[in-house]
C-alpha cells in the first residue's frame, strides 16, 4: 500500500493541475488492488499550463455511470487527443519505508466564511476519494479586530463608525495516515487553496522508540543468578 501510494504521489507531483474542480465525482483507485486508473487523458495547449515541465492534465476517472464526465473512455483513442500512459517507476519507493502519521491537523483561515464553507466541502470530498480516515472538522469562533473612526469629516466627535476585520477558522483533523497518502492529499489540497486563504499544517509523526529507551529483551534461559 505504501508503494502504491508512493506511485500516486509521484504522479501528482510531476503534474500541474490547472483546473479546480469542486465536483469530485471520481476516485483514484490504488494500484495494489489491481485497478489502476490514473491516465493522462489529453495534451493541453501551452496557454492553459501553470508549469511547463510535464505537459499533461489528469482527471479523475468517474466511478458511476450516471455521473457524466468530460472525457469518456471511448473517445480517448484517436482524434485530436493523444493518450499517453504513465510509466511509473516504483523501484525507489519499495526500498524506503513509508512514514506514518498518527495525526494530521490542517488549520485554514480566511476573511470570507462562504469561501471557507466551500473549501470545507472540497476537503471532505477529497479525503473521501483518497480514502483518508478519521476526518473531523472544527469551526472555532472568528477573531475580530475593531477600530472606531470618526464618522464625520469635520467635528461631531460624539459620533463614530466601527470597522472590523474578521478572521474565520476551520480546523481539519485526520487520524492515522501514511506519509505518501498525506503528501498526496496535502499537495492536492494546497494546489486548490483559494487566494486569500491561509493554511497551516501540523503533522504528528510516529517514530520508533530509541534504542536506549527500549525495554530489555527477555532471555529465553533464566540468568545465572
Amino acid at each position, binding site marked *: 500500500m505504501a508503494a502504491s501510494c508512493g506511485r500516486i504521489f509521484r504522479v501528482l507531483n510531476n503534474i500541474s493541475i490547472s483546473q479546480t474542480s469542486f465536483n469530485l465525482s471520481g476516485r483514484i483507485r490504488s494500484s495494489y488492488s489491481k485497478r489502476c486508473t490514473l491516465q493522462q487523458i489529453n495534451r493541453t495547449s501551452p496557454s492553459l499550463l501553470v508549469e511547463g515541465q510535464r505537459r499533461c492534465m489528469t482527471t479523475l476517472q468517474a466511478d458511476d455511470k450516471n455521473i457524466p464526465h468530460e472525457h469518456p473512455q471511448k473517445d480517448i483513442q484517436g482524434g485530436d487527443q493523444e493518450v499517453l500512459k504513465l510509466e511509473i517507476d516504483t523501484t525507489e519507493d519499495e526500498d524506503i519505508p513509508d512514514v506514518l502519521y498518527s495525526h494530521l491537523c490542517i488549520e485554514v*483561515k480566511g476573511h470570507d466564511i462562504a469561501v471557507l464553507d466551500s473549501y470545507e466541502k472540497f476537503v471532505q470530498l477529497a479525503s473521501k476519494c483518497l480514502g483518508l480516515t478519521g476526518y473531523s472538522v472544527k469551526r472555532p469562533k472568528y477573531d475580530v479586530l475593531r477600530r472606531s473612526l470618526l464618522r464625520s469629516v469635520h467635528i461631531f466627535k460624539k459620533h463614530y463608525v466601527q470597522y472590523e476585520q474578521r478572521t474565520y477558522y476551520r480546523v481539519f483533523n485526520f487520524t492515522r495516515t501514511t506519509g505518501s497518502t498525506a503528501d498526496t492529499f496535502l499537495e492536492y489540497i494546497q494546489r486548490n487553496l483559494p487566494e*486569500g486563504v491561509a493554511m497551516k499544517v501540523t503533522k504528528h509523526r510516529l517514530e520508533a522508540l530509541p534504542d536506549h529507551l527500549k525495554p530489555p529483551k527477555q532471555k529465553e534461559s533464566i540468568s545465572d543468578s
Partner: protein
Amino acid sequence: MTLRKLGSFPLTIPYVALRGISTTCTNAATVNKNRLHVRVGRFKPSKDKSIALTYDESKPPYKIGLEKAWNSWNTSNLKGETRMSETLTDDVFIQNFLKGTWGLMQASDVVIKRRHNMIHIFMHILPKRDLQPIYFLLGYSEELLSSLLKCPVKLELQSVQKPRDLIFKYI
C-alpha cells in the same frame, strides 16, 4: 481612467481597498447613516448623464464583498499573518507600473491575486491592430515584475474591443 469624458474632474477611487474590512454595526439606521457620510468611491450624478462608470466604479465601497470584489486578494490582513504593509506597497507599485507600461491601453483596474509564491495579475486591455507590441509589453511586464518582486508573476490579459464594452452605467 480612460473612460472619463475629457475635461471632467478627476475621480479618485480607493483602488487599494484593504482585504477583509467591513463595518461592524448591523443596525439599519446607523448603517445607512454611515453610508451617507462615506465620500470616497461615490460620484455625484451629472445633469446630462455624461459620466460613464464601469461596474466596479458604480458600486459604492460598502458593497465590497456583496456586489463587488476586492482588487487585491491576499492573506496579509488575517490574524497572525505578516507582511501587511509590504503586500500593500507591492500592490500599489504593481498598479503604478502597469499604468506606466500600458498607459491608455489599460481599460480596467488591475486585480492582483496571490497564490502560494506566485502573483497573478488580471487586466483588461484595448488592443491595437498590431499585436506584436502587446506581446512584448506582456513579456516585459512579467519579466520586470518577477525580478523586482522576487517571485513568479503571471499577467493575464483580456481584451476589450471598444471602451464602451466596459461601461455599466451613465450618471
